[in-house]
């Protein structure tokens, strides 16, 4: 066995787990892109992911079908984000404050629901999970096949959603109106665009996507629910959105980089290299900080992000 073989085994193990770790980040980031493009910074996606995780876990445990689990998560995500959208858009409360408190609330609700739902069950039970499906032909390609084409259906759907999101944002009337609401709501409103509606849609999309991302953690990665299952991945999705400059395809690349850094530090711990693994895993965060620092000139964020809107 030559070095080339060892290298390819390492590459496959590393990058295929990178793809697996990146998918929930990407899913949440795609939704958040719509919220932020409409002018709302929805920090509540962290909590929404947790609600999606608990909903999908319990629904899958009770029905045995991960598809019903996914559906339950999306419904819970939509429902909880109606409340968030109302707080952001109608109450016009500080978006950062509402998001942070919602995350604490969601932790309480998830933990309460878990206690209630599992009161007559002893010990943790594994929920039914999505199984990997190899794509015919493509999965046979050496190295690339096992990295990209041997995953669960949820991953393929996520990638398809990137294309859908990009099309909706740049090629549809809806996307134009949404972006106008986030760039210059006064002008957009004068042009007859319903800002309130656009922002509600943006927040609801981010809620549904974040909840689905939470379901992904349960139904693809773990199979169980824990209060620590999300552990800041919603915040990382916020970084992915910025790193990807509020663009779906660039967000996909950004999510892959975050996933790759995460997967690499896991493998480095096995290899015992002198470099501290924490240095590596913090690189994407530092890059995000630099990207948002203003040092590189213009940041590409929507002009009216975080600004409450009131019709005059």
């Amino acid at each position, binding site marked *: 066995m030559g070095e080339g073989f060892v290298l390819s085994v390492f590459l496959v193990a590393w990058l295929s787990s990178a793809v697996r770790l990146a998918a929930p980040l990407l899913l949440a980031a795609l939704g958040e892109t719509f919220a932020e493009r409409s002018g709302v*910074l929805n920090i509540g996606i962290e909590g929404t992911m947790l609600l999606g995780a608990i909903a999908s876990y319990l629904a899958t445990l009770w029905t045995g079908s991960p598809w019903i689990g996914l559906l339950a998560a999306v419904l819970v995500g939509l429902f909880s984000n109606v409340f968030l959208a109302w*707080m952001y858009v*109608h*109450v016009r*409360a*500080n978006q*950062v*404050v*509402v998001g*942070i*408190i*919602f*995350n*604490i*609330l969601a*932790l*309480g*609700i998830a*933990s*309460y629901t878990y*206690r*209630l739902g599992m009161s007559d069950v002893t010990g943790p039970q594994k929920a039914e999970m999505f199984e990997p499906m190899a794509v015919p032909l493509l999965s046979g390609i050496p190295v690339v096949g096992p990295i990209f084409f041997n995953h669960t259906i949820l991953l393929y759907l996520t990638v398809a959603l990137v294309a859908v999101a990009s099309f909706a944002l740049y090629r549809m009337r809806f996307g134009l109106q949404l972006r106008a609401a986030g760039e210059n709501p006064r002008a957009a409103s004068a042009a007859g665009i319903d800002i309130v509606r656009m922002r509600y849609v943006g927040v609801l999309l981010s809620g549904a996507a974040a909840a689905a991302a939470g379901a992904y953690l349960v139904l693809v990665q773990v199979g169980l629910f824990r209060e620590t299952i999300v552990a*800041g991945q919603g*915040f*990382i999705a*916020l*970084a992915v959105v*910025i790193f990807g400059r509020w663009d779906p395809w660039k967000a996909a690349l950004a999510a892959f980089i975050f996933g790759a850094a995460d997967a690499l530090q896991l493998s480095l711990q096995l290899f015992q290299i002198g470099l*501290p693994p*924490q*240095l590596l*895993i*913090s690189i994407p*965060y*530092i890059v*995000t*900080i630099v990207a*948002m*620092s*203003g*040092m590189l000139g213009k*940041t590409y*964020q929507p002009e009216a992000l*975080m600004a409450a809107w009131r019709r005059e």
Partner: protein
Amino acid sequence: MRSLFLEKRLTPSDSALALTLTTALSVVAALCIGGLLMMPFGANPFLAYYQLFEAGFATWRGFGFTLVKAAPLILIGLATICAWRTGFAYLGFEGCLLIGAAAATWTAMQALPGGFLEGVPFLAFLPVVLLTSMCAGALWSGIVGVLKSRFGGNEVITSLMMNYVAIFVVQYLVSGPLRAPGDLPQSPRLPQETWLPYLFEGSRAHLGIVVALVASFLVWVLLLRSRIGYELIVTGLNPKAARYGGINVGARQLLAAFLAGGLAAVAGTVDILGVHHRLVDGLAEGTGFIGIVVALLGKLNPLGCVIAALLYAGLTVGADAMQRQAGLPASVIFIVQSLIILFVLASDLLRYYRVGSRTGVAVNMEAES
């Protein structure tokens, strides 16, 4: 005939009555929801709430735990007040707390045999450790402060990201430079003479609460009774007007960042020297965010922050006791705690309305038009 009517105001009412009423209404509504959530577990909500308040406030031992929990919350709350009232929307308190905890651990480790602080009396050690950790925390938050004041960066996102970097710094420190021999990634146990002394017999309350109260007084003096504080608050209210008034806005924002980081770092110090006595991974557990909530509940006022922190800490201690004694999940109380704030925020809408009563005039006017 007199009739009640509801009409919309142009601006929300900010009378003391309206504020007190909406806050009280929010608390009652949240407590009611909490009571409903207790029902499925077969508990009597009134009894549960009674036990909760008794455990958090009415027993000497329980109140000691409340003070232990309140100290870091007060300090994070004060940090929030300094930053947010200056218009610096900082969210990196969790990271500052960790950096402060690491700096305090390093300083206290110098009091181990062979260190340069060995044998230093506690009264001399305390200012040294507070100063070191405050400097470390201020430097940490200063990074975001410089990015904001020099380059106009978005401090919300950068400070959130800095929290993760801080977590990794602590992970690195406990698995490398500060690691004690043994299997677990943690620092050695700190020498007992560096621990914050307990205040009373039979209670876990330690000197940390005194540190927090002194800090509250100092922040109150600085922010509400000094020229610098005035400039900070004006900067927060309207940076453009502040600039016209001759205030160096960038410098004031940077000062607010330093204050916030220093105060949040003291919260970490208090937790390390008063509770954990060693540095471990996973130390902060959201204190840096709950402190923000506490500051908001106290309407970004130092005194309000102390009261809110005591209430919040007492509820948390009571919730743990409730979970142990009555088998009710403590999460009910966490839900109640966050609902209170969300309701207070949402009740702003109520303050846009005015309730009054009048005689039949309104009806006549409608009839005429």
